[in-house]
C-alpha cells in the first residue's frame, strides 16, 4: 500500500512540475496578485504594511483555489481515476496523495516566497517569522479542504468556479486565524492573541487532514457511480 501511495505521489509531482501549474506558476500568480495591490490602494507605506498579512493570505488562498480544479478532473477525464480506484490503495489515501502533492507544488513554494513578497508590501521584518509559520500550518489545510470541492465538481466541465464557491466558506476559518496569527505581531495586539490564533489554526489544519480525504473520497464515489 505504501508503494502505491509513493508511486502516485511521485507521478503527481512529476506531472505538476512538467505540465506547468506547478510551484513556479503558483509563485508567479502570487507575485502578480501582490504586486497589483499597491496599484489598487495607492503607495501609502503605512497602509500597505497594515494590510500586508491579509493580502498575502488572500493571495495564498487564490493561488490554492486556482490550481484545485484540475486535482481530480484530469484523471477523471482520461480514465485514470477509474484505474486508481481498482488499486489496493483506499480512495481516501488516493486523496491524501493528491492533496500532499498539491501542497508540495503550490502551498510550500508560496510559503517560501511569502517573505519576499512581504517586502513588496512594506511588511515589518519582525512579522516574517509568525507569517511564515502561520502559512506553513495553514497551507496544508487549504489543500486538504480543497480536495472536497475538487471531488464534488469532478464531473463538471469548467468546474473551477463552482469548486471555488464550495470551498471558499471552508477556507474562512483558515483565513481568519491565519491573518490573526500573522498580524498580531505587527498590530501590537494583546499578548495571548497570537498564541490563540496559532492554536486554532493548527486545530483547523488537523481537522481538515481528516475531513478532507474522507469527504472527498465520498464525493468521488458519488460522482463515479
Amino acid at each position, binding site marked *: 500500500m505504501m508503494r502505491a501511495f509513493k508511486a502516485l505521489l*511521485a507521478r503527481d509531482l512529476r506531472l505538476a512540475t512538467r505540465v506547468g501549474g506547478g510551484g513556479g506558476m503558483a509563485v508567479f500568480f502570487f507575485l502578480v496578485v501582490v504586486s497589483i495591490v499597491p496599484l489598487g490602494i495607492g503607495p501609502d507605506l503605512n497602509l500597505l504594511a497594515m494590510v500586508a498579512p491579509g493580502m498575502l493570505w488572500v493571495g495564498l488562498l487564490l493561488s490554492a483555489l486556482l490550481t484545485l480544479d484540475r486535482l481530480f478532473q484530469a484523471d477523471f477525464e*482520461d*480514465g485514470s481515476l477509474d*484505474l486508481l*480506484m481498482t488499486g489496493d490503495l483506499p480512495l481516501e489515501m488516493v486523496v491524501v496523495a493528491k492533496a500532499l502533492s498539491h501542497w508540495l507544488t503550490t502551498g510550500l513554494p508560496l510559503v517560501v516566497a511569502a517573505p519576499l513578497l512581504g517586502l513588496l508590501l512594506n511588511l515589518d521584518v519582525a512579522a516574517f517569522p509568525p507569517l511564515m509559520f502561520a502559512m506553513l500550518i495553514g497551507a496544508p489545510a487549504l489543500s486538504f479542504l480543497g480536495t472536497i470541492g475538487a471531488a464534488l465538481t469532478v464531473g463538471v466541465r469548467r468546474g473551477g468556479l463552482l469548486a471555488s464557491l464550495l470551498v471558499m466558506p471552508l477556507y474562512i476559518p483558515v483565513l481568519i486565524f491565519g491573518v490573526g496569527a500573522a498580524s498580531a505581531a505587527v498590530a501590537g495586539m494583546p499578548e495571548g492573541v497570537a498564541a490563540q490564533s496559532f492554536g486554532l489554526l493548527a486545530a483547523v489544519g488537523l481537522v481538515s487532514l481528516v475531513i478532507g480525504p474522507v469527504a472527498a473520497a465520498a464525493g468521488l464515489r458519488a460522482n463515479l457511480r
Partner: protein
Amino acid sequence: MTYPAMTYPTMRLEGVELACLRGGRLVFEGLSFALEGGEVLELTGPNGAGKSSLLRQMAGLLELAAGRLVMTPDNGDVPLSARLHYVGHQDALKPAMSVVETAHFWAGYLGGGSDIEAALGALDLAALANLPVAYLSAGQKRRLALSRLMLAPRPLWLLDEPTVGLDTASIARLVALMERHLGAGGMIVAATHLDLGLGVIKTLNLASLAGTETP
C-alpha cells in the same frame, strides 16, 4: 520474450441475478453467469445493451442495481476490484510522461513486479520506451494501456473492446497474451466484436436480457 511463468490458484467468478440501472433506464436484469479459471466470457449484444456497464460493475466502478458478484476463493480483505485489471475505452495515459515512466507508475501503483522491460516487450513497446506518450499513435497508446495487464499479475481481466485501434500483428500479440493468461488459470471477460479465436469461450448475449422500459 522472457516473462515469468506463473499460475493462479483455482478460482471462480459468479454473477447472480445482476441488474443495471442507468439514468432511470433498466439496461439489463436477471443476468447470471459463472466463470471458471481458464475460461473467457464473451459479452455480445448491440450498442447500448450494457456490455460496458456490466464490465464497469464488475470492476466496482458502477453500482449493482440488484444481484451480487462473488469471486471464490475469497481473498480475505483484498476487494474484488484489487484482483482485476480493467481496460476500458479510455487509455488512462498522461501525455507528459514517457512510456517507461507510465509503466513504472502503474507497476508501482498496481503492486506489480519489477520486470517492466518484459511487459513493454510483450506489447512491442520496448523501442518506444523513452518517448513521451504525447507522440504515440492511437494504436501505440492502446498497447501501452494493455501493457498494464502484464505489469501486475491479477487473475481477472476485464477488457472493453481491447482491439480498437490495434493492427493485425498487435491483435495477434494480444491474443497470445490472453491465451497465456488463460493457460495460467486466469479469467477474462471481454466485450468485443471480433472473433479472437480463443479456446474455451462462454458467450453472454445481453440483448436477450434487456430490461423492460420504465416510464
